[in-house]
């Protein structure tokens, strides 16, 4: 896929910005909830779609240099996870759509990964 700004998909998919900047490019997308699978599959500058909302997702996103975490199904971050995201400068977005719907929408928008 070509590079795309987070701000583009925030606009086009009406995502909420939970925390962090959206003036960053992302290159690929990974969807999944098991941390040790995400750890090896999320590459630097990927968008990671998950429904996991605890503090450990922030560590994984930080270690993998994910461009952002995208929380599906209106899942909200746990308070300590939000604090960790702010501290580690991890961007977190959210949406009411399901993981599947988000993947379809992103695919239509021109991302493949």
């Amino acid at each position, binding site marked *: 896929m070509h590079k795309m700004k987070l701000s583009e998909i925030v606009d086009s998919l009406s995502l909420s910005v939970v925390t962090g900047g959206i003036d960053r490019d992302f290159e690929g997308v990974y969807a999944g*909830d*098991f*941390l*040790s*699978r*995400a*750890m*090896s599959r999320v590459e*630097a500058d990927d968008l990671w779609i998950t429904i*996991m909302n*605890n*503090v*450990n*997702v922030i*560590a*994984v996103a*930080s*270690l*993998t*240099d994910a461009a952002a975490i995208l929380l599906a199904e209106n899942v909200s971050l746990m308070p*300590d996870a939000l604090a*960790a995201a702010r501290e*580690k400068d991890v961007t977190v977005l959210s949406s009411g759509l399901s993981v599947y719907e988000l993947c379809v929408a992103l695919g239509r928008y021109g991302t493949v990964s």
Partner: protein
Amino acid sequence: MAENIVFHFDVDGEDFSSAGGASVTVKKKLRQLGIAPEYIRRVSIAMYEGEINMVIHANGGSADVIVSDDEIKIVLTDTGPGIPDVSLAMQEGYSTARDSIRSLGFGAGMGLPNMKKYTDTMEIDTELGRGTTITMTVKIA
């Protein structure tokens, strides 16, 4: 680098909700040292998985990272229950993680396989009731 650079961490076994801190710190330090991103990525994955395993399966332990000219060595030592069947534990998908821990996203049974996959060498020294020491290296030369 003329001399080896050594980092030491005590890994808390009580608090598995904020685990991964030692790995995050090591990643930062390796960046400051100017280590190439692909090596940092591999060290991060391997160390994170080992650190988490000590927290969720062994009630904590310690981590040492030794950076030398040609490799990064990670030594993880715990005094937990030990691993009864290492070849079983190494299989993708094998996990004894409790439900409460699975609900946090752990328990895919991919940690040890990831550690093996992303390092150049990995040795597991384990004794039932005594603990486990895992030594991994990533060649950087």
